[in-house]
């Protein structure tokens, strides 16, 4: 498995679309080579016998911490909107979701 790794430009373009990223042809070329190298490196994990080994996703023994279900005020609207790229009348403004619509 370590040797039969063939990442194609189409694979990289597909993963990019899942990640909401887009590359031009030059970038796609460069990233395909680099990601192939990285995948080769991480494939060395196949040398390790992990049969019946439990995966570790977090090192704490803490599972969850619940709080009382009480409404609290958290940040005022103006402050929250201050970092938004585009606002109107106290709302965040975004472009039309459907291509054919003319106005937001």
């Amino acid at each position, binding site marked *: 498995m370590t040797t039969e790794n063939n990442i194609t430009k189409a694979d990289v373009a597909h993963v990019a679309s899942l990640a909401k990223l*887009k590359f031009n042809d030059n970038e796609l070329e460069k990233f395909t080579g680099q990601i192939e190298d990285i995948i080769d490196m*991480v494939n060395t994990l196949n040398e390790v016998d992990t049969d019946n080994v439990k995966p570790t996703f977090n090192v*704490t023994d803490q599972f969850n911490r619940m709080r009382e279900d009480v409404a609290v005020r958290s940040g005022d609207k103006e402050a929250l909107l201050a970092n938004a790229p585009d606002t109107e009348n106290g709302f965040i403004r975004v472009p039309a979701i459907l291509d054919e619509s003319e106005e937001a």
Partner: protein
Amino acid sequence: MKFFDISVSELHQKLVDKELTVTELVSQTLDQIEADQKVLNDFITINRTDALSKAKEIDEKGIDPDNIWAGIPIAVKDNIITKGLKTTAASKMLGNFTPIYDATVVERLQAHDVIIIGKTNMDEFAMGGSTETSFFGDTHNPWDHTKVPGGSSGGSATTVSAGNSIAALGSDTGGSIRQPASYTGIVGVKPTYGRISRYGLIAFGSSLDQIGPMTRSVEDNAALLNIIAGLDERDLTSSDKEVPDFASKIGKDIKGMKIGLPKEYLGEGIDEAVKAVIQEAVQVLTDLGAVVEEISLPRSNYGVAAYYIIGSSEASSNLQRFDGIRYGYRADDVKSLEDVYVKTRSEGFGDEVKRRIMLGTYSLSAGSYDAYFKKAAQVRTLIINDFNQVFENYDLIIGPTAPTPAYAIGAEVDDPTTMYMNDILTIPVNLAGLPAMSLPAGFVDGMPVGLQIIAKPFDEETMYQAGAAFEKATDFHQKHPEMEDK
């Protein structure tokens, strides 16, 4: 003013004795930082106005003689959010982002009247080991301006190393505090996972990230950890374990202490001159009465591979929030919602961040999850088991922090897999959630080399005890780069 030869408690005494006002201290610190910024580029934002007004407030209120941090200016890495003070994570994506609340560590600093002097440069979203992936330009190592300071906390390491800040906060996901501490000749600590709240730390790899102190001395380091550690209801991974005085064992001898030296940490890929520095450090510790024995962490060599899958997977998920809608950068000339996402992210993130998002998305995607993400998480378990086994018989583990001293700016920037291997000695600690320190242990060709001390979970006190004993027996921490006192 330079902080080369003064501890926090000595500086505090000067403030108490009114030899120096907080305003004078802060103003001289700002002048020095601004003067060196042109050569070092270690700050993204210098907090002049606010720091001076805070200084004035504290002068008016008076210095609490029991609070050694009152009025002390410190630098904060720019991925730790500060209310009203621009916080960018060194990314174009957050180039104009002004947080509306403080990180828990920042609240705790401010509760102790610490003054935030500025926000330090770093690798973009803490992804990198050289501070070269910053959108705001490279930071230069104070020991040799043609070399990297390490990363990702390169700006924090640089300002402390240059004597411009007496302390700084960094964050460490795979070595991002310890490796730059090693490259710049300072003390950097990654505490146990859960010791410090991550609330307000811009997330990279949430099961690995930990904030920690960067200082010139072991004592100052423990003193800074003392005021930022402890349970926080807003971070469910923060630990409810009691917070001790981390300096409580500093000054105690280390006779009979059992220290393991992993043979893998002095193996292939480690610079011979670095190995020699570490062998000398082993001799120093032995002379102090510690028992240093060779041990093995057989799976540690797989740490880098496991880390790049786990860290990148977590990053790909964490960075989905950057969508151009609610805050941060939004691309111009977008026609649809899909456009907002894709153009914003493609223009807002740099290449290293994109590589990690890609690797993470790939590792988590249908058909790859078992082969990559789950496999890496299983190897993580084995790496933890290796540490547990050693800690049954040893108090601490030591080794080099990094395989080499700092390298030339630009040398590795287009070769991600080579760059990733620089973290081979620091990554296993993050995977296992352990506390670890890097402290000055010698020089190779005029560049500093760090000794790494790894402790059991929540046993930072023993780590500080051994670090302080080593520091007292050597003079490497007293050496500093030649920087003009302005």
